[in-house]
């Protein structure tokens, strides 16, 4: 059984969308999380039970926010980044105040954000946009530059970084027409050999042991979930009988090598596999079909009693902590 708690305050429920959720690395203790919504950027300090606008300093009405990410060193640097139309918002005080950094002109539409696992040392961030490709900041989000060499499709739908980014400089982007990989920190991109018929690629996840196992997952719009065990060289479809619709998000367990748990978010359910994607079980779905799930966060990992936050079309955010 599961329960949906505290379906947030609704500003304009029929038009609102939760695009992205981000949680503090210390979520179990501080309960801080952020939601990027059509109606603005929201913050919760109680683990997603109650939500409040996090960006009131711009007196221009609701500021549609399409992506949000929290620094891996949030506890010390308090850095949060959010994507809005044409700009990036940066907060260095846990979301109290925000600075604006322009991405360029014409204004790009931010679709996804990736932060370096070694952000505290290298200060690297990447933004995927819907028509203008990838932008990178090398100075903790102050200035941004387009990094699109070799990126033949500038409609970026998702991004993923190698956990060993500092050493292998490997990034992936999923686009309307397939997947591209960079092995030099986003300075240049090369096509990955994925059948174009499988695209668009909506979500990606890189194994925490990528340096050793080379495992990648790609969630497609209409061809289910794909898995590669050779760094994107070849792909096999997994869970073909269970996963038949758009895969909106993929999460992997932190101990993937020892405990290969994979969670995928479909629009009406959450599925979990405990064997790297071979077999699947339904985790939660009651009453979801009327909402349409869009994004998920698992701040405490994928263990059965860990909290899941799920965002929906319409602006709802569900907190699931009993499965």
């Amino acid at each position, binding site marked *: 059984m599961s329960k949906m708690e505290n379906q947030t305050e609704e500003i304009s429920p029929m038009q609102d969308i939760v695009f992205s959720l981000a949680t503090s690395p210390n979520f179990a203790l501080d309960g801080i999380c952020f939601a990027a919504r059509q109606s603005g950027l929201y913050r919760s300090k109680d683990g997603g039970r109650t939500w409040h606008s996090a960006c009131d300093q711009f007196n221009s009405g609701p500021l549609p926010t399409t992506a949000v990410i929290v620094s891996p060193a949030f506890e010390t640097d308090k850095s949060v980044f959010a994507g809005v139309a044409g700009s990036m918002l940066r907060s260095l005080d846990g979301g109290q105040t925000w600075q604006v950094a322009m991405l360029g*002109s*014409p204004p790009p539409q931010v679709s996804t954000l990736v932060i370096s696992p070694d952000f505290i040392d290298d200060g690297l961030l990447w933004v995927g946009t819907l*028509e*203008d*490709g990838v932008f990178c900041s090398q100075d903790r989000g102050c200035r941004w530059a*387009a990094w*699109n*060499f*070799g*990126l*033949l*499709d*500038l*409609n970026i739908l998702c991004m993923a970084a190698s956990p060993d980014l500092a050493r292998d400089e490997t990034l992936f982007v999923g*686009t*309307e*027409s*397939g997947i591209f990989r960079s*092995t*030099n920190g986003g*300075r*240049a991109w*090369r*096509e990955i050999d994925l059948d*174009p018929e499988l*695209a668009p690629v909506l979500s990606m996840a890189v194994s925490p042991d990528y340096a050793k196992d080379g495992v990648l997952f790609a969630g497609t719009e209409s061809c289910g979930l794909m898995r590669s065990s050779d760094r994107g060289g070849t792909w096999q479809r997994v869970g073909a009988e269970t996963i038949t619709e758009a895969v909106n998000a993929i999460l992997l367990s932190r101990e993937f090598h020892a405990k290969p748990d994979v969670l995928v978010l479909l629009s009406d359910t959450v599925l979990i596999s405990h064997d790297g994607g071979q077999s699947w079980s339904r985790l939660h779905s009651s009453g979801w079909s009327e909402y349409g799930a869009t994004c998920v966060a698992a701040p405490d990992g994928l263990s059965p009693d860990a909290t899941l936050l799920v965002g929906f079309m319409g602006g709802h955010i569900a907190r699931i902590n009993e499965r």
Partner: protein
Amino acid sequence: MQRVVFQPATYQGMQQGINQIVAAVRPTLGPRARLVAIDRIVANKDTGPELLGNGGTIARRIIQLPNRDGDMGAMFLRGMLCELQDQVGDGTATAAVLFQMVFDQGVRHSVSGGNAMRLRNYLERGMCIILEELNGMTLRPKQGKEELAKIAEAICYDPPLSKMLGEIFDIIGEYGRLEVRAGSSRGLEREYVTGSYWESSLLSRYMFTDQARQRAELENVAILISDLDLQDPDDLVFLLTLAKQADIQSLVIMARNVSDRAIGMLLANQKDSQFRVVAVKAPGATVDDASAALGDVSVLAGGRPLVAAAGDTLRRVKLEDLGHARQAWADLSYFGIVAGKGNPRALRAHLATLRAAHRNAEDPDVRRRLQQRLGRLMGGSAILSVGGATETEIAVRQKLAEHTADALRGVVREGLLPGGGAALLACRPAMQRLLDGTIDEDERAAYRILSRALEEPLRTIVTNAGYDAADVMAEIRQVGASGSPNPSAFYGFDVISGQVVDMVRAGILDVASVQKAAVRSAIASAALALTIDVLVHHKKPKLDLTPQ
């Protein structure tokens, strides 16, 4: 009157010319290479002689030798070196010394009773075995700018240039576009240009949106892709009406020509309105280039090219014929687009077709054009500006940068071989096996010749660095035979440290495609040259410049 030359004068004459070309090219082989100064054809007191360090270019500058028999041999070799340089950009000095050794030894065998035609066949058979051996030794380069810089340094021996080319190729990749320009500063500078651009020009200075930079920049732009000749302003009315009805704010009109009256009408239309229109010349100097450029723009930006030869006119244009891009820019030299809104799948398929055409193209000019088109479509370009203290220095370094860049492309495509002649040296056991397996005199001679020729690049590198080639060869044999802790090592001579080393471990590597092309060209050409028996000289017509 014609003059006909028979053996032995044929071989003697050709050898004389070949020796002269090889002697001019030989000093440029290896890291301790020297330059060759060439007198300029058009004398200019302000510039000194041309200083060259590239064998292919040196050979190009030798356009005639006084001895006509020798000239035939020299021009035969020159042709091979020029073609090799066009194909792979480097390896000409290696090819020259290989050619000379095979030809000299082949002549010796032929004049002592060997059959040149049979010898040629066996030389070509041996060449195939050498190429197979080289394929087996090929190493794939590690990725990353440091690795690429190391390889570049092994090609050009210029650390700052190598570092910059390593970074550039790490970004632009195998097919990326790199333009090497003469710079105005003392050092090297690089710039990355986002998007794609063509040599073209804005058709009116009144269309600049940024007067200071002499440049027009438009955002969220629609693009008419055409090679039409737009003379009548009325022709444009339909297009402008269509654009305004579709709420298009920015329009680029690409055309072969736009009359002054039509430009006047375009300028009048954007007065006092948000609507911006610029006219640019359709890119491409030849019909083929223009057609390719229109196709490429339409793949990048979407839309359909309107082609005059197909009977297209502006009066038939539809909204869906227009391409679209997030940004477009033009100045008096170039037209570029950033983030074209064409179908990415169509772009990927188009690139795959061009790559296949590039792989299969044999004509260097066709390959170069395909390479340029591929580079334009990859989403960005690099510009390397090469500076220096004098024009001569800039020119020399610019040439060096260009041929190093060509060679680096070869590395990314085909990999690396143990450098400094070690890979060729390592092919000798294969020749020995062939030699041991036959009693045919011509065949044995061919493998003996090749076995000796395979030493020649290493000997030349060593000699150019001031060491004694015989001593070094003996040392290499000794280390390889007895003291080798690693049987798979490729021993050669590091002329910088003055020691016999495993060239792979020492990071002394050569570009596989260049080495293989040099071997192929040198041996095949020398084998062919050995079958030339007769030279025929035409009487040169007297030039009379007196007006009739």
